[in-house]
């Protein structure tokens, strides 16, 4: 039951607003964590670990470069899915985008907590197998974890990158692997011709389309 609540929490919170909303939700917690341990503010952005986390949420095929040409750490993608995943869809850029705000506010508290949890599974998150990474995330995102909002914020990023191509000025299935996997062409500068079945498909109740 606890797990179910966490799942519903997350889906509901992220869908409408994307990563930004989740980041806002996690800010107070991050501020409290940094106040308790000021060293957290100095934790550097760890690109490879953030990529590995994104791959755990929306897994993908092995790749060297993202859609926008950024480098992918060789250990980041576990390779458990045959199609492109969130790393290839430039999740790291979203983590770093100031309009989202994950970095720098949440980076220290998130990576420090992730590191602690990963060591309990046997090593740094980046070095864990996919199943071990899933185990870390299952624990961290469980409703019983009082700090789970940090992980929800971190988890919102790959979904936003993958489903909305928010780093692309004009996202299409040619430049955005998320759109390609979804079967979504993205921008349609000339629209579509075959958009309708062009026939009546139900009885109608009103004359003008609205109720009296």
């Amino acid at each position, binding site marked *: 039951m606890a797990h179910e609540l966490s799942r*519903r929490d997350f889906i509901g919170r992220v869908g409408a607003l994307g990563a930004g909303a989740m980041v806002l939700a996690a800010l107070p917690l991050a501020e409290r964590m940094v106040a308790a341990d000021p060293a957290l503010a100095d934790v550097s952005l760890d690109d490879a670990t953030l990529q590995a986390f994104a791959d755990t949420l929306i897994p993908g095929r092995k790749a060297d470069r993202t859609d926008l040409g950024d480098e992918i750490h060789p250990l980041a993608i576990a390779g458990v899915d045959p199609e492109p995943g969130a790393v290839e869809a430039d999740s790291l850029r979203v983590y770093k985008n100031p*309009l989202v705000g994950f970095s720098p506010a949440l980076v220290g508290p998130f990576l420090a907590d992730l590191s602690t949890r990963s060591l309990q599974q046997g090593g740094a998150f980046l070095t864990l197998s996919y199943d071990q990474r899933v185990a870390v995330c299952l624990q961290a995102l469980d409703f019983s974890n009082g700090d789970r909002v940090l992980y929800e914020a971190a988890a919102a990023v790959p979904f936003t990158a993958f489903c909305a*191509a928010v780093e692309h000025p004009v996202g299409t299935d040619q430049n955005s692997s998320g759109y390609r996997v979804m079967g979504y062409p993205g921008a349609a500068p000339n629209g579509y011709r075959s958009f309708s079945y062009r026939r009546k498909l139900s009885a109608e109740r009103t004359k003008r389309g609205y109720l009296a």
Partner: protein
Amino acid sequence: MAERVDVCIVGSGFGGSISAWRLAELYRAAGSDPASILVLERGRRFKHTDFKQSMHIDHLASIYKLIQSSGGPGTLGASGPQGCQMVTANAVGGGSNLYLAASLRAPTEIFERRDHNPADGPDRRVWPKEISRKTLNGFYGRAEHALRVNRPGWDRVSKSGGLWAATLANAGHTCDRVPLAIDPGRCAEAKWCHTGCVFGAKNTVNTNYLASAERAGVRVRPNRQVESVRRSAPNADGYRYVVSADPMDNEGENPTRRPTGTAEEIECKVLIMSAGAMGTTPILIRSQKDLPSISGQLGRHLGSNGDHVAAIEYDPKKVRDVLGLPGYADFHKGKPITTMTYDFYVGRRAHRYDGTRFNLQEIFLSSLTNFLYDDGRDPAGEPSWWGVQKKQAISSWSNRIELLAMVEDTHDGEFVAPPPQGSSLQPNAGPVEVGVFSYKPSEQSLRVRELADKAMAQIAARDGLGRFMKLTETQGVYCAHPLGGCRMAESKDLGVVDHRCEAFDNEGLFCIDSSAIPSSLGVNPSLTIAAVSERAAAGLTARAHELGLPRRPPGFKHRTPAQIVGERRVPAKI
């Protein structure tokens, strides 16, 4: 010394633009200069060609505000984003830039409703007695003409809308085509209304009311965030209110989207607040100490229009075999709204049905909502909302339709404090902000959403057509149609404005926008906001001379604003 104008309009969406045009007509007819009507708009001005078919976060930040309720009084999410998340617009033309153009008259029963939040006063009709579907019909018609509302034929219904119609028919229900404020000759069926129409096909107020008002001489000043209003000093020559506005840094590379700190003051005889439920209300709350006679109901009864979204994921083989519709993988083509059913509304006229009715509309929100719905797949040792299984669910996106239930809920939100500036707390230049309102759905609001879920699930399941995908309600409501906060009512103890949208005990102060709407509407609200605004504007022009504005000349008639489309993209013929 404040700049002086006759009329200051705060906000340029439906309410502000309709007011501007109707007053411009009056000024022209009376031989006065409409330049004394000034519209202030927080956002920047866009041509159609400035819009992008893109979810690029900078584009979203320039046109949208996504406001989540705060958990506590004025704190930055003290208990997280519980309650409600509101989508609002931020540009000249307001919400009309982003709406999906469904233009529907609200059913008769809506205006007769007596249901309301338990803490919301005595048993009564929620709307003022002067407002009914009958009294609004003429104003609905006026708005329909101005917005060029038309009803697409079945040959213009999208495949996703057609699939919804066929699904309903398969389950024994009816389904109607939805009237739209979209030019059928210019629409390219690209389904990119939600980030601004690059084709100039969507009939925003920038193509009719506001464009005509400007052509007549009304001045529109973009990039101005109104922070507060106050009463003019005594004996101010008929001027009643002073508006304080800050220029905004909205333009150029990397705008901060914050005030620049160089305040302007505008003094006016008539002040029309048209910044919407999420704009007008915080401004007036912040101004409350300087408007001591405003109703104590200010900031209460914030609603979501009963918005409730869900999805159906179809089995393409069943779509072909059961419904006889080949080739469905076309969620992304056509207009974003084309069909809806009224079967869960009609035949329930009596008050015992108040709060139980809803309408179900096929809608396309954006690709981002792909993961809004709980796919319900069995975890089988893995999480279903992330990981391998969720990846598979996301991949089937094109075989879905999205549904918007508009339910008869109660207005459950309340502003708890004014933010220091603007309408909400702004942590960065991005699109997401933290509102200073709480939102706790009432039992009725939850129950009627459950009824809608049950109906959608049953329709989807018939003959195994598809899988119903539910939106969680554990965190509240997702809303693109904020209403209320300055609601109209019979009396000051129940609301902020009267049936004419004028604030009780504050002559010359009007709230002509969504903030005045006192209940959810059962349909997309833009046309009702427009009709209520038309009615308020007609009332205002009729008694303009009492407020120090030009007298309406004999024989004066309101006319339909011209259609002025402007620069737009013309699609190649493919």
